[in-house]
């Protein structure tokens, strides 16, 4: 803060000397007009100093007319610092101020001898301002100013930084996380300070069991480096919120909770570093949608071609059982149990890609055991329908696993097929013999 002052006593001395010289003129000579003068001078106070980048700053301008005459057409002109923006002014009635860009002009009108006018000019400091702000202004009136040195003043304001970055995980979906399923969340960085945060870097250290599939920052750029998501978010202004949307896939085999640790930093010191880092520990569950389907197929040549003709009593019949894990999680302890119709005989063998199968009476049990998400396999059975059977055959296939199944309705299937009967009867009739 600079304050320019001028001794009013010194001014009065100079005026007295001028009047004395005037009184010594010869008698009878014509009186010369007395020139008017006014010593206007200016002081500037800045408040506050130092000021936070992004905060409001007020320049208090004091204009004083040291006389001896009234000062008319008094104006103050100055150039505001590049890093501030003019907001408004406050002054007595009749005083006006206006800014054209950084050029500030205040019209004070007439100040009588000894009058002081105070003008407050409010400016907003740019959130990106750094260093020192210097505001210089000059006051002038219509009358000659015998002491022009006090017509100008300046204020230098120290700029401090107020950055407070906060980090949070938002919109985590789903909770708990599901093995094998997408996991989405938003990393939200907010700057609750008054100043710009520059060179903001967000780092999210991921658990090993996830794979990032999409990163979408509001601004800047993100990349995955080893197990870290690293986002260069550039500048985050005061009260600005920047969101990074993250989509990842959780490993289908994992069963442990997922622990994320994220933090955000900027070039500026943070007012509250404790909220710059967050942990996200997500419980995890497994969901395996096991599905089994079954169809009758022609036999004895096993193929996946569906039967166009009904099976015939006394002839072979094939069954195709298709089991799969639709995920999203891998499935453990998977077992496929097929219950044959009582009117068939499993005499044509079985071919399985679902692990080893054993027959126990009417039941065939296959143990694929571990099924990764997306895995599918088949079991072919060739049976012979009892020749005496008439009606509809019903085969039941059921698959089960250790994990919770989100859609249990497709865990079991009953395939029914009507059976035709073909009997090639023949008749021989002997000619009668008379008795």
């Amino acid at each position, binding site marked *: 803060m600079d304050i320019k002052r001028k001794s009013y006593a010194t001014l009065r001395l100079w005026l007295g000397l001028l009047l004395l010289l005037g009184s010594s003129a010869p008698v009878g000579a014509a009186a010369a007009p007395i020139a008017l003068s006014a010593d206007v001078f200016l002081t500037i106070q800045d408040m506050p100093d130092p000021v936070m980048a992004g905060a409001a700053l007020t320049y208090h301008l004091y204009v004083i007319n040291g006389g001896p005459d009234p000062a008319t057409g008094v104006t103050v002109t100055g150039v505001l610092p590049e890093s501030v923006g003019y907001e408004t002014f406050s002054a007595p009635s009749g005083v006006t101020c206006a800014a054209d860009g950084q050029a500030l002009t205040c019209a004070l009108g007439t100040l009588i001898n000894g009058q002081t006018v105070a003008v407050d000019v409010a400016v907003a400091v740019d959130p990106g301002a750094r260093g020192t702000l210097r505001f210089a202004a000059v006051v002038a009136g219509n009358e000659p100013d015998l002491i022009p040195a006090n017509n100008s003043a300046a204020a230098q304001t120290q700029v401090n930084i107020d950055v407070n970055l906060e980090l949070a995980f938002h919109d985590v979906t789903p909770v708990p996380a599901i093995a094998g399923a997408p996991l989405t969340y938003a990393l939200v960085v907010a700057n609750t300070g008054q100043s710009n945060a520059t060179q903001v870097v967000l780092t999210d250290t991921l658990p090993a069991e996830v794979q990032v599939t999409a990163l979408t920052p509001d601004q800047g750029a993100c990349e995955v480096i080893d197990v870290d998501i690293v986002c260069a978010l550039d500048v985050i202004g005061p009260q600005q919120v920047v969101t990074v949307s993250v989509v990842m896939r959780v490993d289908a085999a994992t069963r442990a909770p997922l622990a994320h640790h994220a933090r955000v930093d900027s070039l500026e010191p943070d007012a509250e570093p404790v909220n710059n880092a967050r942990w996200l520990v997500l419980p995890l569950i497994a969901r395996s949608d096991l599905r089994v389907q079954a169809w009758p197929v022609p036999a004895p040549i096993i193929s996946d071609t569906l039967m166009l003709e009904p099976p015939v009593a006394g002839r072979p019949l094939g069954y195709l059982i298709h089991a799969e894990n639709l995920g999203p999680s891998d499935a453990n302890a998977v077992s496929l149990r097929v219950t044959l119709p009582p009117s068939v005989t499993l005499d044509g063998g079985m071919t399985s890609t679902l692990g080893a199968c054993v027959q126990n009476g009417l039941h065939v049990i296959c143990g694929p055991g571990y099924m990764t998400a997306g895995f599918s396999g088949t079991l072919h059975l060739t049976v012979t329908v009892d020749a005496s059977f008439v009606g509809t055959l019903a085969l039941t296939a059921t698959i089960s696993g250790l994990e919770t199944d989100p859609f249990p309705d497709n865990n079991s299937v009953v395939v029914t097929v009507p059976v035709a009967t073909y009997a090639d009867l023949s*008749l021989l009739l002997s000619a*009668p013999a008379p008795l």
Partner: protein
Amino acid sequence: MNPGSLLAYRHVISNAGPSDAAPVLVTDTFPSGVIFDSAVGADCTGGGARCTIDRLAPGDVITFTVYGRTDTTVRGTFVTTATVASPAENLYPDNNTATAITTVRIFVYLPLTLRSYRP
């Protein structure tokens, strides 16, 4: 044969499969002048003969005899037709019907006695 004689019709029914035929129905159509009399080896009822066999598995062969009795009006050659059927579809129906041809000859005993009359 003579009118009033019994005629023995021997039926041989077989099932080449693949399914069981159950029940099996055999129907004999006799000519006029022959009526059902009895049967051995199957349950049959008359006028013509309607014979029922509970079940005939693939490969099974069953034989039974139907007896018909002629009346005095039967003359000449006549044909008896037998048909076998079951609810199972028969892919080869040509061998489901058989016929038997019988010729009836009339034996008339007309004794002739010559006597002399004296006028």
